[in-house]
Every structure is written in C-alpha cells, then in structure tokens.
C-alpha cells in the first residue's frame, strides 16, 4: 500500500519485478500465463503500448509512436517507456521500438491459446468425492484462513487468546516485520498495525510480496518457478481442480505454504490436486477480492465491508459482529456498548492517541473509515465529517510538537575565547543545534562529536 501511494500507477509487484535480473524476466516471459498476468498489472497506457506493438514483426521508429501521444500524455508516456524498459519488455526504445522477443511470443501464445508450454495449469477430474469443496465453501475457507491470521495479529499482546496460524505463517509474519518476537511472545509491530488498516486486497499483496522476498533469500529456489506459479494461480478458475503432477518441487512447497494463506485448498497432503480460491484468482484484479461477491461466513452474517457510521459528534456505530472487524476498530475507537448486530463507541482523544502511539497514522484511520463507511454515510460529501477529520489530524499533530534529536551538550569552557573558537568550528561543520554565548554552552548533533572532540584535544595540546 505504501508503494501504491507513492506512485498510484505502479503495482507493488511490478516494483518487485523491476528488481529481478533480465535473464529471470526473460525466462519468465516464456510462460504465456505470466505474460497475461503482467499485462493486467501494467498501467493502462503501458498496456496499450504493448498491445499496439504486439503484432508488428519488425521494429518501429519510436517517433511514429510518439506522434500518437497527446500533450496530456507526454509524462505518462515517458514513465511508461522507462517502466517497460526496466521490465525488459521494451528494451532500448531510443530510436527504434520493438517488443522483447520472448515476451512477444509469450503474449501472442497467451492470446491465441497456442504454444506448448502448458503454463495455465493442468485441469484434472477430482480424485474422489471426499475433500472437494464447492466454490462458496472455498470462499469461506479462504476468508476464514485470512481472518485467522489477521485476528491473531490484532489480539497479540493482549490477554485474549485466538487460534494460532501455522508455523510458516508465523515465521513469515516475523520475517516481514509485521510482528516481532519478544521472549517467545509475538507482538504486533507498528508496521503490523498499519497493515491491519489496509484493504484486504492490499494486505494480500503485501503478504505475498514479503513471501516472495523471503523466498528470494533462499538459494535453492528458482525465482522463475516461484513467480510463474503465482501468475499461473492468478489465471486459474476458482473451484476447478488442478493437478500437482506438473508442478516442480519448489512449486509443491509453495502449494502447501499458500494453503495457509487461503489461496489454495487441498484436503490432505496425499492428494494429487488442489483447488485455487477466489483469493488466488483475483490476484491480478485491481479491486478488492470481496467487493464483487457476497461472501458469507459460516455463522451466516454478511461479510459486508461497509458497516461504519460516524457522526459529527464522534460517535461510531459499527453494524458488525465480526470479531476481527471489532478488534481492528478497537485499535482507535473506545467502545461503550455492544448489541447483537452492532457495536457503539466513540472516537476520543485517548483512543486515537493510543492508535497513533502504535504507529498508525491519521491518514490510515481516515482511509479505513472511508473504505468501510456505511452506504448511508456515502450520501454525505465528504464522507467523513470535516470536524472529525480535522480533529484526528490535530491529534496527530499534537504528537509532533516536540521533536527529539540526539546530541551532546558542550559546556564549562574555560574562557569566552575558547568557546567562540569551538562553536565557530562546530558551525562550520553544520552540527550546532542550539547555542547560548552568555552561559558558554552549545548543543551539537551527535554526528559532530568525534570532530569537535578531536578539535578541542588538538587545541589543548597546543
């Protein structure tokens, strides 16, 4: 999410792909499923550029493409060319422009359905009636898995006990810095709190990216295999059975890892097929995995994502009985009353400050409230009352009234002259933060300590 905010057009995974070596990318592009998935992650203009060049055999003068770009699109076009060059899709676009050969053939095969790479996964008939889930059950399974992880995070460090996710997930949570391990007890970090307030889709991607980074550190894993498997998953159909026979050993490990995240389902380790859930198949979609579908969790409650009513008097009414949603709201709302279908509380200075101390920013609180605002709230413009918005931001500013800086105080200079000379030297270094000539004291940044010390020693030695 943080990367998305910096540059709204770039998908987080594209940044990850930028960091890969050209050979890795070129090997990846031999898989049509990877090409199709990457196309979806590109920005609209990049995608159109690729599509326009796809069926041209020879190189084209860059000028003839540039002529089509409108004045408004210039900067976006420059950015698109750079990004595509980094992805090795359009290398060297200075004078002539030509799609990279393996990407071109990969995407062509993907669109026409030809080629022999078999990168879309092998569909199989289910082995037996046992252990196959209909699509709705798969959705429930995926949501339940994901909620378990989030709920574990949100209740960590409190007295409440919740179901523990598997060891692999716990390791990943620590590795990605979302949780820290203190004396065997896992505590959620400030990055973890920020993670909780993101949309489910963004959370999923952040999780997958940390998974990819973790896998990248392992020497025995081939990145092409790993990325290829993710792209294949994103192109599968939910509820279908895919064979595990065609998978490489790396991918077999991934299947069992991804089961813990709720991306795939298989009943036991001995089965030879797996079913991707909607989490996996909507990976390359831009919007949330939930929004399009009416997912219901097992107790029949609607897993609607729009349930929060916030009034100008700071009162919060949340129409939910989902423990996870309540726990997340509890991060910055002080609750007063709980009813079967709703929970009531208010935003107070203390409750918001508690969240700010945990590393959550005011913007994150506001964006969470906006994304989860009740349909009734959406009639307002702006959705969140201005008074509340301003107050939350003011509470955040309160925390920034005092700024700390490490440094050293230099005092008890023998003479005014000594003081003048030393402070002049420190000024030249640019490390003086505060000075008071009448009391012969000054405070300098920690970085300057060694220099100032040696300067004073050299002077006294004279």
């Amino acid at each position: 999410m943080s990367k998305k905010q910096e540059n709204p057009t770039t998908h987080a995974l594209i940044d990850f792909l930028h960091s890969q070596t050209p050979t890795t990318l070129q090997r990846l592009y031999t898989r049509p499923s990877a090409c199709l998935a990457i196309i979806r992650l590109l920005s609209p203009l990049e995608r159109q550029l690729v599509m326009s060049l796809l069926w041209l055999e020879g190189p084209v003068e860059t000028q003839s493409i540039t002529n089509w770009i409108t004045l408004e699109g210039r900067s976006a076009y420059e950015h698109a060319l750079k990004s595509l060059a980094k992805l090795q899709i359009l290398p060297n676009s200075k004078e002539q422009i030509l799609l990279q050969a393996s990407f071109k053939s990969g995407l062509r095969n993907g669109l026409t359905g030809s080629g022999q790479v078999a990168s879309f996964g092998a569909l199989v008939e289910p082995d037996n009636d046992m252990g196959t889930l209909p699509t709705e059950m798969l959705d429930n399974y995926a949501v339940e898995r994901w909620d378990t992880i989030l709920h574990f995070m949100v209740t960590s460090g409190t007295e409440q006990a919740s179901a523990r996710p598997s060891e692999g997930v716990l390791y990943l949570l620590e590795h990605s810095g979302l949780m820290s391990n203190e004396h065997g007890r896992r505590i959620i970090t400030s990055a973890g709190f920020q993670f909780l307030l993101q949309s489910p889709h963004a959370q999923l991607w952040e999780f997958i990216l940390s998974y990819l980074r973790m896998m990248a550190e392992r020497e025995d894993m081939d990145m092409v295999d790993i990325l290829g498997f993710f792209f294949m998953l994103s192109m599968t159909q939910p509820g279908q059975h895919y064979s595990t026979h065609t998978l490489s050993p790396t991918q077999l490990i991934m299947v069992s890892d991804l089961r813990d995240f709720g991306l795939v389902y298989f009943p036991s380790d001995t089965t030879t097929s797996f079913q991707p859930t909607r989490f996996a198949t909507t990976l390359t979609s831009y919007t949330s995995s939930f929004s399009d579908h009416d997912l219901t969790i097992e107790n029949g409650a609607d897993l609607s994502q729009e349930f929060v009513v916030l009034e100008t008097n700071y009162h919060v009414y949340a129409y939910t009985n989902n423990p996870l949603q309540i726990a997340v709201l509890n991060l910055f709302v002080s609750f007063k009353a709980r009813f079967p279908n709703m929970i009531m509380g208010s935003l107070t200075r203390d409750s918001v400050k508690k969240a700010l101390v945990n590393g959550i920013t005011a913007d994150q609180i506001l964006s969470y409230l906006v994304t989860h605002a009740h349909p009734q709230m959406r009639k307002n413009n702006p959705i969140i009352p201005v008074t509340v918005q301003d107050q939350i931001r003011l509470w955040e500013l309160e925390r920034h009234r005092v700024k700390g800086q490490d440094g050293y105080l230099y005092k008890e200079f023998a003479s005014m002259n000594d003081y003048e000379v030393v402070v002049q030297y420190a000024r030249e270094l640019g490390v003086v933060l505060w000075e008071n000539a009448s009391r012969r004291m000054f405070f300098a940044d920690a970085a300057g300590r060694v220099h100032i010390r040696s300067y004073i020693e050299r002077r006294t030695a004279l």
Partner: protein
Amino acid sequence: MENASHLSVILDLSPSQWYQSSQTSGDKHPLSLAHFLPQLFVFLNAHLASQHENTLTVFGAFPGKSSMLYSSNETYIQADADSNTFQPFKTMNSVIAQRLNEELESLPEDAEAPIALVGALTKSLCTINRRSHPSDTLNATSPNPSKLPTPRLLVISVSPDLSASYIPIMNSIFCAQKLKLSIDVCKIFGPDNVFLQQAAHLTGGSYISIDRRDSILQYLMTTFLSPPAVRRLMAVPTEDRIDLRAACFCHKQIVDIGFICSICLSIFCKPTPVCSTCRVKFPIKTLQRLKEAVNPVLPPNIPAPKLPAEAPPATPRVMPPFSMPHPGFMPAGLFTPKKMSKIPKPAPRVPPGMK
C-alpha cells in the same frame, strides 16, 4: 485505480456482403468471415486480458434478425481443459463460434432480408443501460457507481447504409450520448457508411474504413482496444471528413438539401403542405416561396452555383441566399442545409443599413 471497461461488439453478419468481401476480384486484400473471426477472437481475448473485471457482450446483426452471441454476465459450459489456453478465452471463443454457426444455418435460403443492424444496436444499448443502473434491478446490493465499468460500443460493419434506418440510428446515437458511451465503427468492406460515420462523430468514437484488410488485427488492437481514459493520452485515428447528410422522412433517401418542419424537425426532400409527422399545416405563401427556391430564378448579381463533381446524380436543389428578406413570421417550411460544405456560398450581400 483504473476503471474496468465494458465492450459491446456488434458484428455485421450479412452473408452476401461477406461473400463479396472474400472475392479477390477488384480487391488486393480479400477477407472472408472465416479468416476474420480468428482475428476478432484475438482482439476480444486481448480486451478480456487487459483487466480482470473487463466485461464483454457480442451481438450479431443477421439479415432480418439480431441476436446475442455472447455475454460475460451469463454462465456457459466451460470449454475442455487445455493447459495451453486461458480457459475463459477458450470458452468465449467456442461459444461465439457455435452460436454464429447455429444462427447462420437457420437463415432462410431465399432472398436476403435487410441487415438488422438497428436491432443489434438497440439491444446492446439496452444491456449497457441495464449495466449502468444496477440499483434499479432486483439486485438490491448496488455497488458504488464509480466502480462500474465504463461502457464502449464497437460496430464492425460490412453492409452499405440502409436509408430506411436513419431515424432509429439517430435515436440510438442520442441514447448513446445520454449514456455517455462512445460508438466506434470499423468498416471492413463496402462504401462509407454515412449514418455510422455520424454515430462515431457525434459520440466521440472513431470511424475507420480499413484499407489494408490483411492487417485487420493491427487496426483492431491499435484503435479499438483502448478505453476512453487511455485515448486521452494516446490518440486514436478519427475521420476528419464526415458526411453529415440526413435521410428524408418521406422517401427515406439521403438528401443534400432538406426541408425541415419548424415544429417537429422532420426532414422532407420536397416542400409539403402538411407535415406528415405532426400534421401541422404550412402557410401557402411560404410553400410557394420554397417551391420557387427549389427551382430558383437567380438574381443577376449572383453567379450560378457550381456543384461539386462528387454530388449525387439526383437533381440538386439549390438553397436560396440566406440574406433573403425575412417574412414577417417564421416560415414553417424553413429548411437547413445538411451539408454546408458542398454548397458554394452565395456572394454576401451587405444589408443597406450597414454601409
């Protein structure tokens, strides 16, 4: 966050036109339906590949009837597993091919009825309208309207204009304007289509008459794949010469100069005493003057207008000069020329007071 887009394709499937298109005589690049369809499928696949939420409907305009060939809203039997193909592509392509075959088989053998382009056009406008107002339907959980896909319409045409369909096509254009969707036209075979040119022009779409039909796929991918948001950044070719002629309501002929009822704006090729649409009676005086105007007695100081060579063979009607002294009331039969550029303007006469 970009919006998904909905593409509605209208496929002109006139057997005789496609047959002519596949003939080599007089054309360097013959294109038969059998060669065109695979290229269309690649284009449709590319549309679905662009974004996960992209949706598609395909309508076929057959002689005398129109029918829906494919819609992403409906569920079809999944195509057989093939690990080399993205399954939704395969399903979509096989459904369209199968429906197309069924419809073409069931066409009557005898004389070909006029192509039902208007039927297909209105049907797809209706489906788009339903998509853009999901809250009105039974489904109560309406998603955020800003998340709805932006619609677009593409007409792939091989048949010439049907002048009888002028009014319904104009109405479809108004409807499209109201729905804020653009109509793109890809003219594969035959002479330029006046009404579809106007449709593209008035809705901000692009009309392209394909010169090199062997590279039809490249045309489709460069011009018709990009959603409106991308077109602001990367321009698509448009026609700069647009034939804006209209068809008269009385004989359904395309006219250069028409006579328009000042009450209901109906177009006639000749001055008529009574408007056939709204039954208003025009004053005799105006009628007489208009009839004179049709066969004008030109004042000596105006040179006889020369008509451009490409003017249709029908007897051209010349408009009287604009500066003709106005009668006391607005003449009911005042006309507007539909294609100004084709008529040489009379020498401007400065009113006496201005000198």
